[in-house]
């Protein structure tokens, strides 16, 4: 476990260093890059030099940058004239809502479909399989557009954009969650079907268990192992997908912030978003590791 934490810290350090190196290597003057498209006055320039210590040797700059990060100081956006930490703090809520809702949708759909269709007739499995394939192969923004035109523009059930109330969350969460449901559903069903063919499933049936009880009490846990491993992958998909989904549905959130920062060349914000994604990724994969150990005690060795 200590090894795992060490690896996590190392990933964060590499992410921080990589974005710092990117800043230094970017063509042009570092001050220009940090200002980006923001207001450019001699006072602001002097402020940047002071904050980033650009008048000191590069190694001191780098160390003080790490030192500031360690204290949670993510720097300042010269375009938005606000602290980066502050910007992220106000935007993290809607994004967390969206990604969590999407993950929950994906997991719930995948679970239900897999449990209902595992080991069943060819038609049911074929239909589920086809639906999964479509949801995986169609890009999320297209799913979003279809959902919007059907449920918002035509039927008017859900708001077209914004983040007011739970109703506004439904379509974005579906758009982001469906591809996850597709992949996860296939993996779960595959895992369930493999588990149901194992000798222990015969033993369990021979105890008088119903098929449903066999799936929920025995097979599901076996199927969860590959699914949890896969969950690490969809953390990345969720974070990346959130950018597109937020823009598409006009939702506030980190995606919007990142999008604007990249197009406006607001380097401090971009760097902070990179770090935050790395931190989220490290946290989630550590949690998933723990989950794997809890599900399969054999992993401890």
């Amino acid at each position, binding site marked *: 476990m200590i090894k795992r934490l060490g690896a996590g810290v190392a990933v964060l350090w590499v992410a921080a260093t990589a974005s710092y190196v990117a800043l230094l290597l970017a063509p042009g003057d570092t001050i220009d890059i940090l200002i980006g498209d923001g207001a450019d006055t001699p006072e602001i320039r002097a402020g940047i030099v002071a904050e980033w210590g650009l008048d000191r040797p590069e190694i001191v700059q780098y160390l003080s940058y790490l030192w500031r990060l360690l204290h949670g100081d993510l720097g300042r956006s010269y375009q938005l004239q606000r602290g980066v930490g502050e910007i992220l703090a106000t935007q993290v809520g809607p994004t967390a809502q969206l990604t969590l809702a999407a993950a929950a949708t994906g997991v719930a759909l995948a679970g239900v479909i897999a449990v209902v269709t595992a*080991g069943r007739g060819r038609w049911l499995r074929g239909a589920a399989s086809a639906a999964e394939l479509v949801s995986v192969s169609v890009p999320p923004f297209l799913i979003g557009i279809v959902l919007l035109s059907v449920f918002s523009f035509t039927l008017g059930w859900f708001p077209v954009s914004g983040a007011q109330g739970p109703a506004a969350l439904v379509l974005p969460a579906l758009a982001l969650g469906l591809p996850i449901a597709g992949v996860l559903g296939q993996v779960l069903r595959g895992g369930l079907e493999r588990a149901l063919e*194992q*000798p*222990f499933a*015969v*033993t*369990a*049936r*021979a*105890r*008088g*268990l*119903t098929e*449903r*009880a066999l799936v929920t*009490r*025995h097979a599901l*846990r*076996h199927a969860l192992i590959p699914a949890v491993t896969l969950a690490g992958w969809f953390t990345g998909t969720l974070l990346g997908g959130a950018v597109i989904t937020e823009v598409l549905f006009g939702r506030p959130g980190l995606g919007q912030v990142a999008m604007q920062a990249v197009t406006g060349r607001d380097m401090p914000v971009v760097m902070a978003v990179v770090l935050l994604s790395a931190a989220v990724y490290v946290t989630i994969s550590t949690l998933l590791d723990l989950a794997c150990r809890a*599900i*399969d*005690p*054999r992993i401890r060795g």
Partner: protein
Amino acid sequence: MTTYAGPPSVREGLGGSGHRPPPPGPLLAVEDLRVSFGGADVVRGLSLSIAPGECVAIVGESGSGKSVTARTLLGLAGPGSTVRASAFGVSGRDALAFGPADWRRLRGRFAGLVLQDALVSLDPLRTIGAEIAEVLSVHDVVPRARREERVLELLEAVGVPDPAARAGQRPHQLSGGLRQRALIASAIAADPQLIIADEPTTALDVTVQAQILRLLAGRKAAGTALLLISHDLAVVASIADRILVMKDGQIVEEGPAREVLTTPAHDYTNALLAAVPSAASRGTRLTTGAPRTRPTPNPSAQVLAGTALARSYGSRRVVDNVSFTLHEGETLGIVGESGSGKTTLARLALALLDPDSGRISLHQRQWSHLRERARRPLRPRIQLISQNPLDSFDPRHTVGRLVAEPLRLPRARRRARVLDLLDRVGLPPETAARHPRELSGGQRQRVAVARALGPRPDVLVCDEPVSALDVSIQAQVLDLLADLQAEYGTALVFISHDLGVVHHLADRVLVMKDGRVVEEGDVREVFTRPRHPYTRALVASVPRM
């Protein structure tokens, strides 16, 4: 949610409580049972009856339909199966009219199932306590509050020491014997009148096998009927009242155990009996019973020798001060139970692993502690045959490519040599184009032998080469090895947990326990007059007919 507590009348009808006198008549009576999968008949007209307290054994090779028969008796023939019978009585009721719920009520309650290898037959992710408690909850055998206590009683009853600690463990944390006991505990948890045991001791060490058979015999003595399924007549000999010999989905012979074993009427039964390797079969061919020529070991030509070998994994000493010699044309048997260091010794002999101390020589030249570059030219001299060839074959390669791999021949001559090798091991030329998965277990082991013979080795290290095979297939592979040895004078290191096999084949034997050699010598001497207590225990555990 699946807890079933049916109306009392129904449960009485099932004979649910073992404390009541059993219903009159057979527990189970099937007439002309036929099971087919997609048009292919697997069981073809089997009739069987089991009386209360009786032990009936079905013996046959894999593919004979015996396992399908066992499962069909619990309504578990599986998806895609069609089951027909002219009569199918279970506990005095007509099973042909059963729906899924009727079957579920019987499973575990009327009959418990014990499968092979508890490592996979118990849910590996759950504790054995939870597995046993599941039966209690499904059939509502005892009130919820008493379940835990009952689990411990059951573990105690099957001879698991320290049940309170064991109940919280998972199959992989237990030894093979303990987890098989736990599996039996789960099968008898609802006190069934019948135990169906499908190869319950296969893959277990001989001493553990003897313990499990005693445990089953104890249940039988307590009045539980037993249906025992095995490929090995010797295993069922000590416990069965009646034996049914099954072949290609049909019963070819049936009778009291003593009669079937001593005066078999059918050729197939005879062949099965003759196929069991033992002291008596020494010097004969197992498949035909004809005498075979043994190569005369050449004591002046030492091919492989290990001196004071030791090897540890972490702090565990797996091989401890082992020395051995092997001469041209000789067969050195190595017996011992799992964990005794046999396989590590094989890896040392093959120089896949270097000993921590001690040395190995091949043809009187240094073999251990060499750089791989120096070792490589010598590698063809010593080859391996492993227990499960499927694991050692690249599944995407054809048999031809697998056999050709170790050959250092120009392409033009390679194919002829592959076909020649396949012919030597009794495989038709067409086999070269097939993939290992399409072959039967015996055919795969023949391919493994062909591949090992390819480089014309002086030493063949055989690590449990027949342990995964049925007796009849085992007999063919053992005969093949003996023939090839006679022809080429190859020396064999033959590792096995099966004393009968070693007694049949080997000249000398090492008995290993906990990494040490506890006894060694001429195989007849060691097995007929064992001196070490451990060897005595091993010899005493061998099932006898």
